[in-house]
């Protein structure tokens, strides 16, 4: 009973604290202030009172309360800048623009109050980049898309104020729709434990039934006649009644078989093993002063069983810091430094280039090749043009709070790196309006008129700007993927193109992200003509996208090649090594990223997820069910042709249409393959009936990359894996966009990095470097799993051994529910005599030390297949327990049966028998744990031998005559001998 109470109270307190914390944080969020427009006046109210249809005012740096339709803002054209880090993990600013009818209202409250437009929009959904609705205002319909919508979770930046109409609130917001379900995570061992406890209960029932039947028969044959010495109780009318009573008596006696204290012990062990993670100096990241942290203390042993790791890319594998590393301008490669002998210089020996000639340079920027600076200073025409194009062709925002201190807000870190590079070399992008770009070129301020931005998208893979220079020339600058730009080049630069492509391949093979830069000078007439067509295309309502892109193509041709930029997305320290080790441990890594495909693939190669020796990397990028199915099947045909045949066991199994949940066994491919799939095709694959195809194909590959993923898709992939494979999944990420996946996976790991705290707060374990994952899994996880398994098998064993002795004794005491041991021993056995040694083992044991577990990652595999504790192991424990209890009962019985001491006094009495059995039992279980313990620390010695010694001390105390004299009814046993 005591253990049960302890278990319940511990669990209750823990849950209560958790609930209280959650309640407090909910309260805090609900009571945040917001400005609501009520009766023509702004009124402060609480977040929780915001309703659909309200008009609210948001100010700079405020978070957006709900999904709102932008009406107007302080900026020209009602632009509003927002940061979406919490939604998609991207740290750059994005621009939203209100439609013109509403932007005219500006901040005139009387107009806003009178605003009576009607919005019809789609039902709440989780698609972050899609929204369609129609605003009916003053009898006219206006089309609304996601560019007009400010989503909850964004933060207003660089905008003094804006007004918006609330469209979705609370759980309907896209943020909440994406957040995934928050469920209590339980480990497989937990489930197994519950099942086993149920089994034990059933077993207990059966044993008690057998004994009760035995009692009935005995009462009939013997007990009835023995009534001269022991009459039956008055309420026992027949042996059947007696048997029913005995059933319950045995239920009470044998209840020690159901290990109630198991749950407490398991909690303690997990807590201890979590603390080790918090305490590990080797998982402490000094630059950020952050130790690793186990936020959940109930998942430890699963760390030793992980089979699939789902990783975010940006900020997890990489540092999310882009560095301008190399460039090739007009056929000359800059960036590598050579010493006098023509040898490449390593980073540590390199000298940074001095940018002191440029007052606006970013001090953090470093570059090592002096020849480029010299070229800039010399005034090389091509180099100047190259950097000019970098400083003009982008969508970066600049902020200059202090004179000369420029801060760039870039759509993508790549762009930021390029503009920063241009800035340092003397082409400083200073500010922009919607019509002009101001650049300080080598100290001189020049104002460019921004004529058109031909924006970037996935298909075009390039962006261009058309500007009018101060010299009144019209220039088009373009940057984009090499494959695309090469096609658009003017034939005259084909030889330059060949040289540049060589450089580009060099850079790409080093894992650098490359972009090609080109320009074109347009004549006035052509531009005017094109501009007209462009405006038409912009205003068209049907096929706007395709018409625009065809217009773009008209001008983006006959480009003159300038050069190539190469940007390094620096991997975190030790990432490739970690991935190699994880691969050796047969852990499959899937990279789920919101990034574009090229970047993701580059990183995959540089961090060893994909190897050059791979047999093939499949790319799935279909746009409909059939294509995707075909692509997946082609891939599988290469990897394991027989898996497509009807005779394949899995196919046969699937044709039987098994009910969920069913499990797909592991399939082995005939080589080393990789798979790349993008979010768009994944949407089909996940939502259609292709998920099994996808899963089977992907699971055969050694490495998988999913790019362009929405947060929810990340979670869906994890869920898919959990649904059909009985494996432990781990998700690791750093941004708010990883939260749903972190929540969905069995284990969520948050990297505390650049992108805020969301991921960390929702994770089970956090640390600051991806490389610590190997320590978390291979060292801590492995130990935790081994310890937990050893603990469970020993714990069940010791309880069976202890309890089943009563069962054997029943056959010799008329099934009368007589116990073998004395009451005090029964009370102390689980709580005192045997609890510490097993806890000690499960907190300190190490089967191999950390060096070996990292050196031989193969040691991790047994955990993935759950070999150390499963139903089979449990049955072994049970058998072992039955055998031990058998020996523990029958050997003392044989020895004491009708035995006497050498002075003639008989010792076949109940007390002697009890003492012999219980002392043997203590010895046996202690020796068992001593044999199981492989790592003998001082503590192990103290707890193991101490417990044994303590048993003997307790025995001397409990069986002393002082206690017996004082409480004759409580302490009935008495040491037999005393010196006379």
């Amino acid at each position: 009973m005591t253990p049960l109470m302890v278990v319940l109270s511990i669990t209750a307190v823990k849950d209560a604290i958790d609930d209280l914390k959650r309640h407090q944080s909910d309260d805090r969020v609900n009571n945040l202030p917001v400005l609501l427009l009520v009766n023509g006046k702004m009124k402060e109210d609480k977040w929780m009172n915001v309703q659909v249809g309200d008009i609210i005012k948001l100010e700079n740096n405020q978070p957006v309360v709900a999904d709102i339709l932008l009406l107007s803002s302080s900026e020209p054209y009602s632009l509003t800048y927002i940061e979406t880090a919490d939604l998609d993990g991207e740290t750059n600013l994005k621009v939203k623009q209100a439609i013109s009818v509403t932007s005219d209202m500006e901040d005139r409250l009387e107009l806003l109050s009178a605003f009576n437009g009607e919005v019809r929009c789609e039902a709440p959904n989780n698609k972050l980049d899609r929204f369609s609705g129609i605003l009916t205002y003053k009898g006219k319909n206006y089309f609304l898309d996601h560019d007009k919508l400010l989503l909850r979770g964004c933060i207003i930046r660089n905008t003094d104020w804006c007004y918006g109409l609330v469209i979705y609130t609370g759980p309907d917001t896209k943020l909440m729709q994406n957040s995934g379900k928050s469920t209590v995570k339980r480990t497989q061992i937990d489930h197994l434990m519950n099942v086993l406890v149920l089994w034990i209960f059933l077993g207990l029932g059966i044993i008690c039934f057998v004994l009760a039947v035995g009692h009935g028969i005995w009462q009939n044959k013997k007990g009835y006649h023995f009534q001269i010495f022991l009459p039956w109780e008055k309420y026992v009318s027949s042996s059947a009644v007696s048997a029913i009573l005995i059933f319950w008596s045995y239920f009470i006696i044998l209840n020690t078989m159901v290990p109630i204290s198991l749950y407490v012990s398991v909690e303690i062990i997990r807590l201890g093993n979590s603390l080790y993670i918090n305490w590990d100096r080797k998982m402490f990241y000094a630059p950020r002063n952050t130790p690793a942290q186990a936020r959940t203390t109930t998942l430890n042993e699963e760390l030793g069983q992980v089979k699939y790791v789902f990783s975010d890319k940006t900020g997890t594998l990489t540092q999310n810091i882009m560095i301008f590393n190399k460039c090739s301008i007009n056929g000359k490669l800059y960036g590598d430094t050579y010493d006098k002998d023509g040898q490449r210089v390593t980073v540590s020996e390199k000298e940074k280039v001095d940018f002191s000639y440029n007052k606006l340079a970013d001090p953090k920027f470093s570059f090592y090749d002096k020849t480029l600076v010299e070229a800039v200073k010399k005034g090389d025409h091509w180099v100047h043009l190259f950097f000019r194009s970098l400083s003009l062709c982008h969508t970066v925002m600049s902020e200059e709070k202090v004179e000369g201190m420029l801060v760039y807000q870039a759509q993508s870190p790549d762009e930021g790196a390029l503009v920063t590079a241009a800035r340092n070399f003397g082409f400083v992008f200073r500010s922009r309006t919607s019509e002009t770009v101001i650049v300080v070129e080598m100290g001189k301020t020049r104002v460019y008129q921004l004529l058109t931005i031909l924006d970037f998208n996935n298909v075009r893979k390039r962006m261009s700007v058309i500007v009018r220079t101060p010299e009144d020339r019209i220039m088009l600058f373009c940057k984009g993927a090499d494959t695309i730009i090469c096609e658009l080049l003017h034939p005259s630069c084909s030889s330059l193109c060949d040289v540049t492509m060589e450089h580009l391949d060099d850079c790409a093979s080093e894992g650098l992200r490359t972009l090609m830069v080109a320009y074109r000078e347009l004549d006035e007439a052509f531009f005017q003509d094109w501009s007209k067509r462009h405006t038409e295309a912009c205003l068209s309502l049907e096929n706007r996208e395709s018409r625009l892109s065809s217009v773009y193509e008209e001008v983006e041709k006959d480009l003159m090649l300038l050069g190539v930029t190469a940007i390094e997305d620096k991997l975190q320290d030790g990432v490739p090594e970690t991935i190699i080790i994880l691969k050796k441990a047969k852990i499959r890594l899937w990279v789920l990223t919101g990034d574009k495909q090229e970047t993701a693939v580059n990183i995959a190669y540089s961090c060893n997820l994909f190897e050059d020796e791979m047999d093939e990397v499949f790319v799935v990028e279909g746009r409909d069910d059939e294509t995707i199915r075909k692509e997946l099947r082609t891939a599988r045909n290469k990897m394991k042709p027989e898996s497509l045949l009807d005779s394949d066991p899995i196919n046969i199994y699937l044709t039987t249409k098994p009910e969920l949940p069913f499990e797909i066994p592991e399939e082995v491919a005939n080589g080393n393959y990789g798979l790349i799939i993008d979010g768009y095709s994944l949407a089909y694959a996940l939502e259609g009936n292709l998920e099994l195809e996808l899963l089977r194909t992907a699971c055969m590959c050694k490495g998988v990359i999913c790019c362009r993923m929405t947060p929810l898709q990340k979670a869906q992939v994890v869920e898919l894996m959990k649904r059909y494979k009985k494996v432990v999944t781990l998700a690791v990420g750093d941004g708010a966009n990883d939260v749903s996946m972190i929540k969905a996976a069995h284990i969520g790991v948050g990297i505390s990095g650049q992108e805020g705290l969301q991921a960390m707060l929702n994770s089970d374990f956090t640390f600051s470097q991806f490389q610590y994952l190997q320590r978390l899994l291979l060292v801590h996880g492995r130990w935790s799993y081994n310890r937990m398994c050893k603990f469970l098998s020993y714990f069940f064993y010791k309880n069976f051994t202890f309890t089943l002795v009563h069962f054997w004794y029943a056959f010799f005491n008329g099934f009368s529910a007589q116990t073998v041991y004395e009451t005090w021993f029964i009370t102390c056995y689980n709580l005192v005599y045997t609890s510490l040694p097993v806890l000690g083992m499960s907190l300190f044991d190490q089967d191999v030390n950390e060096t070996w577990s990292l050196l031989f990652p193969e040691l991790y595999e047994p955990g993935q297949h759950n070999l150390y504790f499963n139903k089979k192991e449990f049955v072994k424990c049970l058998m072992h327990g039955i055998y031990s209890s058998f020996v523990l009962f029958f050997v003392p019985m044989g020895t004491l049966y009708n035995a006497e001491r050498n002075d003639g006094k008989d010792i076949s009495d109940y007390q002697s028998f009890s003492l012999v059995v219980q002392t043997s039992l203590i010895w046996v279980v202690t020796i068992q744990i001593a044999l199981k313990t492989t790592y003998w620390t001082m503590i192990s010695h103290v707890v193991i031998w101490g417990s044994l010694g303590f048993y003997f001390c307790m025995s001397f105390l409990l069986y002393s005559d002082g206690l017996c004299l004082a409480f004759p009814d409580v302490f009935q046993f008495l040491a037999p001998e005393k010196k006379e």
Partner: protein
Amino acid sequence: MEERPQHRPSRLPDNSALKQQELPAHRLYFTARRVLFVFFTTGIFSLCMGIILILSARSTQEIEINYTRICANCAKLRENASNFDKECTCSIPFNLSGKMMGNIYMYYKLYGFYQNLYRYVRSRSNRQLMGKDIKAVDDCAPFKMSDNKTPIVPCGAIANSMFNDTIILLHNINSSVQIKVPMLKSGLTWWTDKYVKFQNPSSKNLADEFRGTTKPPNWPKPIYDLDKKDPRNNGFLNDDFIVWMRAAAFPTFKKLYGRLNRTHHFIEGLPAGNYSLNITYNFPVTRFHGEKSVVLSTLTWCGGNSLFLGLAYTVTGAITWLASFAMMAIHIMLKNKKMSFFHQ
């Protein structure tokens, strides 16, 4: 490495052996040599112990005379509870072919008597038996009070069912002369039983002390009248009583009844010859299909003639040796395999 802001204390975890899981420790390496050594020594030890124990046990002598059936008329008489006051004696002659040397112990042995039933074992009052409060009968159900509501002393099922046959051993020197073999009725109990657990109430006159109580229903005489010859062997301190009160663990058990007083004729033990047992047959066993017998036994350093422990040791030793030979064979086989593997 970036410079850390000075005002923030470092959160670097302590570098203690416990927290870094680097406690000094030694590992158990079960090499084949060590394991085989342990197995062989354990085997030798067990075999030796087994052989010694078996030889010792075989050096003892024991005879057992089952008198359930032999005294059939008495058994029949006792079947009917109403005949409790009718005395029945029975004499059983037996022949001792060889002499029994050394200390001889006489036991009575009961078969099928369940002293270990849950309710039976608990049905006693330790407070009463200690002489502290002779009216404490709470734990004694179903023998707490007599019909006229006076407490039973000694109360409880154990006391009530006390073995009450009298056994007298006679040596027939020839057909007419019989000598009573002298038996000691003291030193039969555990020391702590006699001096701690069982105490008479302090008064000198036991009969006074036990006034206001009733004898157990099965008893012919009250507790203070058990031994008429030796007044000190009366009340709760009666050796037979104490021996009986120590409940046996199994339904077949024997309890010490007397020790041979080695004087005169019996100074070396029991000489060979004809003997007879004179039994006053009071204890009813046939009613619950039990049996009873008298056991005469000599002892050695390790107790009586039970071979079990010796056999258990021998078997264990033998199995350990078998196992160690098997392991050695496997070890050598694998070693050769490994060697040949390396030679290739």
